[in-house]
């Protein structure tokens, strides 16, 4: 296979198949973790960035990228980790946000609402992904993974994860 003739957009679509192991509905592309793809002669370079520095999923994601691209016929794959500019939830696609919501995780609000260093600031208004009520409250600023906070809906009473702004 002449990899250099493969369209970059096709590679992006291959990477869409790779999901975040912590949130199996969300692809690493929709999450904004894939920053760039380059061809260097016969080598394909994929540049990825972690969501949080301690994200334990990074090694698994890199291995999945290798496996996926190898299955498509690419033999020389280089995965580069980049941390600057730092990942932000602004890079999550609208499709990704919709998928999160359908999965039961409230998607991140636009950033300006959050990066607030004021102490004891009122809880952000987060919409319940189950019943769509805005009457929700924060139970914990930290959740089951580094990227989430824990909320509960006052209407349907369901607890839910909120993918916090970052």
């Amino acid at each position: 296979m002449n990899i250099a003739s493969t369209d970059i957009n096709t590679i992006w679509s291959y990477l869409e198949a790779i999901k975040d192991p912590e949130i199996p509905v969300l692809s690493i592309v929709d999450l904004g973790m894939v920053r760039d793809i380059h061809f260097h002669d016969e080598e394909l370079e994929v540049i990825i960035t972690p969501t949080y520095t301690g994200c334990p999923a990074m090694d698994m994601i890199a291995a999945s990228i290798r496996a996926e691209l190898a299955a498509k016929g690419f033999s020389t794959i280089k995965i580069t980790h980049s941390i600057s500019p730092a990942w932000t939830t602004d890079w999550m696609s609208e499709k990704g946000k919709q998928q999160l919501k359908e999965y039961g995780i409230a998607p991140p609000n636009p950033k300006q609402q959050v990066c607030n260093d004021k102490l004891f600031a009122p809880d952000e208004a987060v919409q319940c992904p189950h019943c769509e009520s805005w009457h929700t409250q924060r139970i914990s600023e930290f959740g089951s993974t580094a990227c989430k906070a824990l909320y509960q809906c006052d209407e349907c009473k369901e607890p839910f994860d909120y993918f916090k702004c970052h």
Partner: protein
Amino acid sequence: MSRSITEYLLYLADNTLILGQRNAAWCGHGPVLEQDIAITNISLDLIGQARSFYQYTAEMLGEGATEDRLAYLRTEREFKNCLLVEQPNGDWAQTLLRQFLFSSYQFYLYRYLLNLPDTRIAAIAEKSLKEVSYHLRWSSEWVIRMGDGTDESHRRLKEALDELWSYTGELFLPAGYEKDLGIEVASLENDWSKKVKEVFDEANLTVPGNVFMQTGGKSGMHSEHLGHLLTELQYMQRTYPGCEW
């Protein structure tokens, strides 16, 4: 010069590894579930930062250095972390006050590191600063909640302050490698003191005056606590060298 850079990187890495290890000991023991999750999340962020710094150090050192070898196979005297982060967890008040004193220092330090000519350090600082801002907000709120809470919570926080304050002076005294690199640590003290005072005022705490400040951690002279911590942290690699899972 290159020795100073790797020593400084180890200082940054060791601070975050050791505090991450301390906080991780709360896993399953937090006062309530949500705060257990909070302190262990903070631990994860810190260990992630440590990895970024160790990886860079290992690349600079070459000769077979790896992030794992740096974390698991150095002796106590080779660790450069400040004394503050190795102090025992004590009670919840002591843990969160230690977190507050350190996160507020880290916040101004990382802001300073953004402007270093070494773009790799600046990038790690940029990435970590987002996490540290979150830690600082969380720990500030807890200091206020406990200081301005019940008689007992105030007493515990006050005792924690008496215990920890003497380990804060070292943060603003340059170690040899900081001098070599021109890292102006003393320039961070004003912002840090202002932040601490602002939170202490809300928490009805007074900044202690006239305290003899302990030093040594940054150059490898540690309190008795670090050795015990390392025996746990390094146990597996010391007992089963090279083991993987």
